[in-house]
């Protein structure tokens, strides 16, 4: 099963590699990992997506909690939560296809942020599934380059993860 774990960490050099190292050393799977500082400059917030059965994910959570730099964590999928990922995608958009790409981008609420006579660069946010769907709709032969951020998540309502 897919699990999305949100982690507050001390904003210190090496903290990210402790998490990444934990996963590689113990043979856990990381699907995606995003990290950036928060409004509190001493804290970083990390969103980690992983897959595994209940027992594996329980171990992952316990081992993460054991890291000295980890202040707090939350398994978002235990709650109602919102998940977003951002994608920058460069597509071939010329002649007859150009209009079609523009229309698709609008349907997916993408924004075209860079244009040349043959290329559109589109910014798109949503769940990973939505981004996948967009790529499928555009078609592999039109795609020149894809950059995805990995998932970020936050719980709905008044539930917060704070130090």
């Amino acid at each position, binding site marked *: 099963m897919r699990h999305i774990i949100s982690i507050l*960490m*001390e904003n210190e050099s*090496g903290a990210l*590699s*402790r998490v990444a*190292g934990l996963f590689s*050393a113990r043979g856990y799977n990381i699907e995606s990992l995003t990290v950036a500082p928060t409004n509190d400059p001493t804290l970083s917030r990390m969103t980690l997506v992983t897959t595994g059965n209940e*027992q594996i994910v*329980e*171990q992952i959570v*316990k*081992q993460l*909690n*054991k890291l*000295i*730099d*980890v*202040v707090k964590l939350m398994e978002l999928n235990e709650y109602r939560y919102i998940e977003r990922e951002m994608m920058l995608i460069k597509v071939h958009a010329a002649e007859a296809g150009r209009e079609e790409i523009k229309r698709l981008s609008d349907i997916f609420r993408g924004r075209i942020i860079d244009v040349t006579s043959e290329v559109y660069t589109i910014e798109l946010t949503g769940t990973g599934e939505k981004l996948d769907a967009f790529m499928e709709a555009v078609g592999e032969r039109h795609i020149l380059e894809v950059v995805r951020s990995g998932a970020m998540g936050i719980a709905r309502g008044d539930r917060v993860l704070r*130090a």
Partner: protein
Amino acid sequence: MTELTGAEIFVRCLKAEDVDLIFGYPGGAVLHIYDALYKQKDISHILTRHEQGAVHAAEGYAKSTGRVGVALVTSGPGATNAVTGIADAYMDSVPLVVFTGQVPTYLIGNDAFQESDSVGITRPIVKHNFLVKDVADLAETVKKAFYIAASGRPGPVVVDLPKDVTAAKAAFKYPKSIRMRSYNPTIKGHPGQIKRAAELILQAERPIIYAGGGVILGGAAKELTEFTRMLGYPITNTLMGLGGYPATDRQSLGMLGMHGTYEANMAMHQADVVIAIGARFDDRVTGNVDKFCPHAKIVHVDVDPASISKTVRVDIPIVGQVKDVLEDLIGIIRESGKKPKAAPLKAWWKQIEEWRGLDCLKYDRGSELIKPQFVLEKLYEITGGDAYVTSDVGQHQMWAAQFYKFDKPNRWINSGGLGTMGVGLPFAIGTQMAHPDEQVVCVTGEASIQMCIQELSTCLQYHLPIKVVTLNNRYMGMVRQWQEFFYQGRYAMSYMDALPDFVKLAEAYGHVGMRIERPGDVEGALREAMAIKDRLVFMDFVTDDTENVYPMIPAGAGQNEMILV
């Protein structure tokens, strides 16, 4: 406020932590520190012959005293040589602070001479590590390092010290205590869970207590003994837990696991309630997890939440310091006024005595060759069970665990988790330095001892009267045993060709050497060696090269599937 150099601050910090001994090896990056150590008298520095020896010696100090062991090594090769010791301490939860020198901050990342990324290299094998970039952070970092190493589930902490940081100046202010928002180990167990555990424990008909190294590390041997005697239940100790409960007591079934006793393993297999205390269900204990304790409800007490339900599902988890949880359990059971179920318990003990009657540790006493088991039996007799025994890794380690009866904690010092060959002699150095008036014996094999044999020189320098008992069977014995069992006797590379003359070698290092070749000479030699109080004695026992460690549970089998002889 007067300012001190980083090196002087370092020394002040160690004094503030009551450190009296550190083990290490100098080098370019730590010369400021060595100079500062030279100018003071409160802390003794023990010079080993290799950084691996220094870290293992610090481990021996920590394991035999329960205090934090300290090692100091230089950058680059000094730090990489320390890695095996750090990994060993990590696996056995030894409280250790290892200081590594580092090239000056302005050279870090430049592939400077004797540079290695010590924080990066040690990250997977430490509880935590630090790189001190500013002398102003040094004192607080050292305080944190000692606090993290010793609290919760203990473990090694590495502090990397760039050379310019040890030269730069700052005001010295040592924090009295440390609060870290991200690190708060649980001490008290959950009262509701403890109550549930007490109820389950009292309902048991075929109970067994399975106690591990956490009891020793948590200083809870007294509480464990009280708890066990109060209930009258059988108890088995893990390899790391030996001495947590008196081995000579009737309730003790000895060690469990791969080379544990028949009675301990059968009792685990048949138990209806297993009370695991400070033990982590290592694969050398559980064997095949699918066949492990098939009838039992399991209570697990451990300070490390990640150790609970890691390999085996438990029914009642209790996270907390073993000592505190045992005190609570004792209190609740006392207050309840309830007693264990007498009739089923009587029947359970009758069954256990039948298993015990098999005498699974018996061996051929009529042999004309020296049996290794006999050497350890005699060693136990002659030392009265009072010695600090360090061991290396292999067959001799298992025989020591089986035949030396530990009645007290912190007396058995060995490498359980990582299984590091070469630890025995440096462990003995650290132990003897910590207990100068006690008898320290290093039980080893001819293969293990050669992995850190240069430390015989350290023993000479500090006049350590360690007794080295080498069970010399001309093979890497445990490797040979597995090759015999599982590889049809193809002894690939397990044969030690070209062994040194250990007697001459010991003498070359300034010690007393003895070679013992006949069973009739074993006792006399041991007595003679123990009587030599001011010298290291290296005893080379030439033993039966075909002897194997029994009983044995082959890897992947269940606890009831022992090979007896």
